[in-house]
């Protein structure tokens, strides 16, 4: 035997790591003070954070909650002694106390506030089975499907037959599809299932709804779209655009990959056109141009027009994000699904899309967040979203000159929504991880 021979007879036991590598000390050493350069950076950052907070916090904690006007706020601050070299220092929160309901609901009649509030609560019930499949019974998905119709009825009011007749359009489409797919084949069935409901909505839905409501009048007080405003408007537009743009984006992304030349060119043309045009242009089209193309006398609701435009805009971006996810999937996944005999739609639904969407989650949620923030652009076409309202509030002589408090409050609310979406996406990504744990 040579002297390099070695045979291990027992396996060494695991040892605990050294103390300096664990606990708070270990964490601080590794993350804050690893080397002299990082230590200096840590100290400098702490100094910057301290100086920023020490000038902002006194401004934020200002005793002006009961101020009735900007002048009144200044008196309160002077009395409290918060006077700096440029006059009083401190926020004037009275404007938020006085106008926060308006920032939330716009000019929605105050005796009907329960309707948007109830809708908002129901929104979370409806989202439950979609967002938290682990904790919420899946039967609730029925409610999620009905929610859009309930929400529209609660928000705008009017006869209950309007949403029911609109819902009937989908039922008719489904019925036509079921019947036609056995009688005429899949493609004809899809075309018919899209055409028949549209004809129903355009020509029959109105008369049928008014006929039914004259027989059984069952209605809520109608609220006009121009009275919508504040965060209620942002959430209405944002949530609708988010929910509608995802399926539309999936269809566009699949269409763009299609072998059928016409389908493919239509999808590519749509995506490239919408992405090549600023959202504001589309909103102007919605608010002014669209009426020119409509037959005279039709009253096409402004919020509905904006909803369609924002949804189309978001869908084009969504399609490209999802195409990225599709491109990242190995070809073997398509072949695996094909070799088992799954047809195109089954393969897409069961194998391809779940994976492509999972890969695209960060991009999808970024698009969602972008869409939600873009809803503030509607203030340009005179819809009173929170930003539009902030201008209206400043027009009041009492609050003329208020800037930071309003924008800060609006920013905070937007942040809450966008940050929640971002956190949710991270939760979802973790949940869908299927590698080694």
């Amino acid at each position: 035997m040579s002297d390099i021979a070695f045979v291990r007879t027992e396996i060494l036991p695991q040892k605990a790591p050294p103390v300096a590598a664990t606990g708070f000390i270990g964490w601080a050493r590794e993350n804050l003070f690893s080397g002299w350069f990082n230590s200096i950076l840590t100290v400098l950052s702490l100094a910057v954070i301290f100086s920023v907070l020490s000038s902002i916090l006194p401004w934020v904690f200002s005793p002006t909650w009961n101020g009735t006007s900007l002048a009144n706020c200044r008196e309160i601050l002077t009395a409290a002694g918060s006077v700096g070299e440029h006059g009083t220092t401190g926020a004037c929160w009275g404007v938020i106390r006085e106008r926060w309901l308006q920032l939330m609901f716009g000019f929605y009649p105050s005796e009907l506030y329960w309707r948007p509030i109830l809708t908002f609560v129901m929104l979370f019930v409806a989202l439950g089975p979609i967002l938290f499949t682990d904790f919420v019974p899946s039967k609730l998905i029925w409610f999620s499907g009905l929610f859009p119709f309930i929400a529209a009825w609660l928000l705008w009011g009017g006869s209950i037959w309007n949403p029911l007749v609109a819902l009937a359009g989908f039922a008719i489409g489904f019925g036509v599809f079921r019947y036609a797919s056995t009688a005429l084949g899949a493609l004809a069935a899809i075309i018919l299932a899209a055409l028949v409901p549209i004809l129903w909505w355009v020509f029959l839905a109105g008369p049928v709804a008014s006929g039914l409501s004259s027989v059984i009048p069952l209605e809520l007080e109608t609220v006009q779209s121009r009275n919508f405003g504040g965060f209620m408007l942002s959430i209405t537009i944002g949530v609708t655009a988010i929910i509608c743009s995802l399926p539309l984006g999936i269809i566009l992304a699949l269409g763009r990959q299609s072998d059928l030349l016409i389908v493919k060119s239509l999808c590519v043309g749509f995506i490239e056109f919408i992405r090549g045009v600023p959202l504001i242009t589309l909103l102007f089209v919605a608010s002014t141009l669209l009426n020119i193309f409509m037959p005279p006398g039709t009253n096409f609701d402004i919020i509905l027009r904006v909803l369609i435009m924002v949804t189309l805009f978001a869908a084009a971006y969504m399609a490209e994000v999802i195409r990225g996810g599709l491109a990242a999937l190995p070809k073997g996944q398509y072949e695996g699904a094909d070799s088992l005999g799954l047809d195109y739609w089954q393969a897409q639904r069961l194998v391809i899309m779940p994976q492509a969407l999972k890969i695209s989650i960060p991009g999808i949620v970024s698009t969602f967040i972008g869409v939600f923030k873009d809803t503030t652009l509607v203030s340009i076409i005179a819809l009173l979203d929170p930003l539009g309202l902030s201008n209206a509030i400043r027009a009041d002589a009492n609050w003329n000159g208020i800037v930071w408090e309003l924008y800060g409050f609006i920013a905070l609310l937007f942040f809450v929504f966008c940050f929640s979406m971002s956190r949710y996406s991270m939760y979802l990504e973790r949940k869908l991880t299927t590698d080694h744990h």
Partner: protein
Amino acid sequence: MSDLALDRDIDRSKMQVSDEVAIEITNMNKWYGTFHVLRDINLTVNRGERIVIAGPSGSGKSTLIRCINRLEEHQQGKIVVDGTELTSDLKNIDKIRSEVGMCFQHFNLFPHLTILENLTLAPIWVRKTPKKEAIETAMYFLEKVKIPEQADKYPGMLSGGQQQRVAIARSLCMKPRIMLFDEPTSALDPEMIKEVLDTMIELAEEGMTMLCVTHEMGFARQVANRVIFMDQGQIVEQNEPEEFFNNPKSERTKLFLSQILGH
């Protein structure tokens, strides 16, 4: 690849080749763009045959078996599988695919589904089997490939050999009459090749019609009833394994065999 010796006796009692034709390929040609990948392929496979297709890389052997379930489209000639001709008719294609199982070099398991869901997916959606029955079948085949305890894990948590066995079980759940193997052991560590080959041998012992593209010459020698050698998109030589290995006729085959068995 080495001439891997298989350390088991093979039960040949059920390895019967019948007269019934399972696959018939006549004058089939295929091009990738202008490149002529498959040239005038004529091949008849009877039920119960175990065919190994060998050849240098780029010789078109994978393309050939991928044409049989139309993962690749042929441009000329005729392929008839189980009496159904492969045309661009999607119904026929899906029917053939659900009756012809396939295993890939990279397994192609669905990483977002558990092992059990991978196995029950196609039976439930394509065969419309009730879920309970599909799970029973899936567990039966998982037992068969000896990994029932992994049923609730995800593919990413399994070793390569285990994943390939799951992939075989996934194909078997569709009760296929023909199995295609596209280099099933090429992406595996040597330690894991044997467990996959064992599974394939068991399949052969039950009389399954098999077409394998593989470099495992030990498997070819002991299990196959016919070895096909392809080069430059053509079938150059085919024979019984004994003859093929001991007494190759064409120069090309001799060269190939000397290269893969020579060391």
